[in-house]
């Protein structure tokens, strides 16, 4: 495959391959963490005995890789690059060269990030949120020197890349729609990308600003985030009188919308897949689209729920708790929309549909712990415990990843002209869903028991957490199982890409335009989900058919 290309579908594949590389590394890191947590004194092959700072470096890099390079890239620009232009009847993205530039910036960002492992004292240890002063002062810990600089440069570049990608998506949706592709004829994925690209523009701009300020604190003598008299490692480092809380506000103003950037495209895709494999229309399409917008809008004003115990004014805690609780409403409407859509029987279950159902299961399970964590009174026990880890791995990581799998199995024919192997796909789904539930569900209980995040071992000077060791071992086994199941996926991808069954035109009998046999030449006159139910018969009208054609 040509590497330097401005062709959007090829770039989509390249973006997905970039995410695949990141997710592979991120998963390996998490396995080392899981094994170390339950057998902290057992040397591991190759790496040897893990030091506490090594564990924290793994946590930081795992989170950074997964959130930025997997869950931001793949569902948004990865899939959008793959199918967005076709879905709206355009010939290409609005700015093909910008798309290529954004991709290569993202590749550079990934390489810069991984370099942090190999600099003296290794990768940063402050977690993916990089709270200062730990992240502002190199002396505050190993990895906070050169490693942290690499992290900052990498994420700075990543902001730029995402920003360019979002500009491109937005311009494509707003300006490149084919005649007749009205707002009510957009596939739900396009609505999702519209919202995420706006969120990206707003959120990543703020993150980039925060990163520039932090770099300035580290190298140019400013003191945005370091308070006066801050004493690190026996030396007073605070120059001016900055505020660590400022970083938290800037970071979470980005960090919360980021979650929706990761999961909204999955919501759009699930809607499309439920319609397709249920052969039914999307009831309440305008409501479903409006709820995506509502989630995106509310997502911008809830960042303070990450800060209930940060020292933020308790009144602000109340305000953020209420806006956060409000998000439950559009999310509930979406979930009820899907559940009613699925009712009625006669669903078909090819692999993409299975993964879309898996997405829904995790979205419900992870979503429901949201209202609990949105309550400051409960969060002041649960904050930064494994309950939170369980929550966001369910609702963002697993729901996100399952929607990615759904998309890859679904759109694979567009990438390679072949279908993925269904038997392996179904095996992959069942092993993954068992492994994922086994990994992340028990984490709720470790969290309720009070186990904090970022602990490299359970036993400490004042506590042993001996009661949760069995639980933790179970989690580790399930995580190994889950990771092993992904080998089936990798094998399936690489084998099907070369030897898979050639895909017939429109293999899923879909209605949206990416499956049109040739680019449409006339006005679009149909909605995105014109499926009908009939006995032993597929009745559906693709968007590329004209309105006058008899059904």
């Amino acid at each position, binding site marked *: 495959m040509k590497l330097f290309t401005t062709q959007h579908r090829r770039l989509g594949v390249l973006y997905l391959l970039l995410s695949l590389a990141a997710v592979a590394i991120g998963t390996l890191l998490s396995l080392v963490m899981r094994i170390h947590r339950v057998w902290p004194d057992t040397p591991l092959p190759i790496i040897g005995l893990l030091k*506490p700072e090594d564990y924290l470096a793994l*946590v930081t890099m795992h989170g950074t890789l997964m959130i930025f390079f997997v869950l931001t890239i793949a569902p948004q620009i990865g899939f959008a690059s793959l199918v967005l232009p076709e879905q709206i009847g355009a010939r290409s993205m609005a700015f093909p060269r910008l798309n290529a530039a954004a991709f290569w910036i993202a590749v550079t960002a990934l390489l810069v990030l991984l370099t942090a492992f190999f600099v003296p004292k290794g990768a940063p240890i*402050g977690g993916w949120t990089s*709270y*200062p*002063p*730990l992240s502002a*002062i190199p002396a*505050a*810990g190993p990895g906070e020197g050169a490693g942290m600089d690499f992290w900052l440069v990498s994420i700075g570049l990543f902001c730029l890349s995402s920003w360019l990608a979002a500009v491109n998506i937005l311009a494509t949706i707003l300006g490149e729609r084919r005649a007749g592709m009205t707002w009510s004829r957009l596939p739900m994925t396009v609505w999702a990308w519209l919202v995420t690209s706006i969120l990206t523009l707003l959120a990543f701009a703020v993150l980039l600003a925060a990163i520039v300020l932090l770099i300035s604190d580290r190298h140019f003598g400013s003191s945005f985030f*370091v*308070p*006066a*008299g*801050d*004493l*690190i490692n026996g030396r*007073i480092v*605070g120059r001016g009188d900055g505020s660590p*809380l400022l970083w938290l506000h800037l970071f979470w103003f980005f960090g919360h919308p980021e979650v929706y950037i990761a999961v909204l495209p999955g919501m759009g895709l699930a809607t499309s897949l439920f319609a397709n494999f249920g052969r039914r229309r999307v009831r309440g399409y305008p409501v479903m689209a409006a709820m995506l917008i509502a989630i995106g809008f509310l997502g911008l004003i809830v960042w303070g729920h990450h800060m209930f*115990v940060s*020292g933020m004014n*308790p009144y602000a*805690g109340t305000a953020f708790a*209420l806006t956060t*609780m409000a998000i*439950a*409403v559009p999310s*509930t409407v979406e979930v*009820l929309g899907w559940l009613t859509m699925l*009712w*009625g*029987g*006669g*669903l078909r279950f090819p692999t993409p549909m299975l993964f879309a*159902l898996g997405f*829904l*299961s995790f979205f*419900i399970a992870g979503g429901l712990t949201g*209202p*609990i964590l949105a*309550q*400051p*009174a*409960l969060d*002041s*026990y649960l*904050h*930064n415990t494994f309950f939170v880890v369980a929550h966001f791995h369910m609702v963002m990581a697993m729901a996100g990843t399952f929607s990615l799998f759904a998309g890859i199995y679904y759109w694979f024919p567009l990438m390679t002209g072949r279908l993925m192997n269904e038997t392996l796909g179904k095996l992959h789904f069942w092993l993954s869903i068992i492994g994922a539930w086994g990994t992340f569900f028990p984490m709720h209980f*470790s969290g*309720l028991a*009070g186990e904090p995040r970022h*602990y*490299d071992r359970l036993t*400490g*000077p*004042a506590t042993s957490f001996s009661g949760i060791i069995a*639980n933790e071992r179970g989690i580790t086994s399930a995580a190994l199982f889950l990771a092993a199941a992904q080998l089936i996926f990798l094998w399936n991808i690489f084998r099907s890409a070369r030897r898979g069954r050639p895909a017939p035109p429109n293999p899923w009998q879909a209605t949206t335009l990416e499956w049109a046999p040739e680019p449409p030449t006339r006005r679009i006159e149909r909605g995105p989900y014109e499926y009908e*139910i*009939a006995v032993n018969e597929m009745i559906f009208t693709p968007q590329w058919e004209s309105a006058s054609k008899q059904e």
Partner: protein
Amino acid sequence: MPAVLLEALCIAQSHLWMPPDASLHGLAVDRLMRWNLIAICICFLVAHVWLILAVVRKKQRLKVQDNRGPRRQLLAAGVIAALCAMYLWMAVTAQHLWAQNRYAGPSLEAMQVEVVGEQFQWYFRYPGSDATFGSTRPALVNAAEGNPLGLNPRDPRSADDIVSSVLVLPAGREVDLRLRSLDVIHGLFIPSMRLKENAVPGLVLHVHFTPTTPGTYPILCSQVCGLGHARMQAILSVVSPAEFEAWLAARERARAKESGPTEPTAP
């Protein structure tokens, strides 16, 4: 059989549940947590039963008879309204508790203790007989010479300040913690007291609570603060008021002996 089940439940409760509450406000927190978890468990189960039924249903209804439309819409609106009512109820009850715990300051009789986090140790300072914390300066911090918090020796108010590595509190008396950090952000987490608040450099934050049950409880750091984060733990020892008085008096005597010679003579 029920006995076995009950036992299993107890084991599960002791380890995979919150540790027993030992604070006054914790009762309400636990009650809220329990009801919330039950509520979301029910929602979770209903949604998944629905999902599984939808998946296994073979028969597909043909499009014809759709006179149930309005009734369905009403049902859907009812479900949404019920769930919204649940969220509203969650928000209101939780805010009520949050307001109780955090809006108002401690009572005037609350005992004052300062909690200082530094990489990777918690220190607890009692104001001593003058009931006032002496001033501190970062430049004076020197743990090796016995001044981990940088108490100012020229300040007479700090001469009787007691610095402890164990948080000793009398049961039944409200305590007002004055939370600081010398270096990076730490998180004070006392699971049994249902209490968590960050210690942020540059800020002095206050949290208050009343320990009720004598015992020994772990204090953890809940905000990643560097390589020693997981070992940054301390002990909270809740004792009877009489034992507390005895402990405090002993520490005050020891403190007077040690700072006696260097103490500037008060006029």
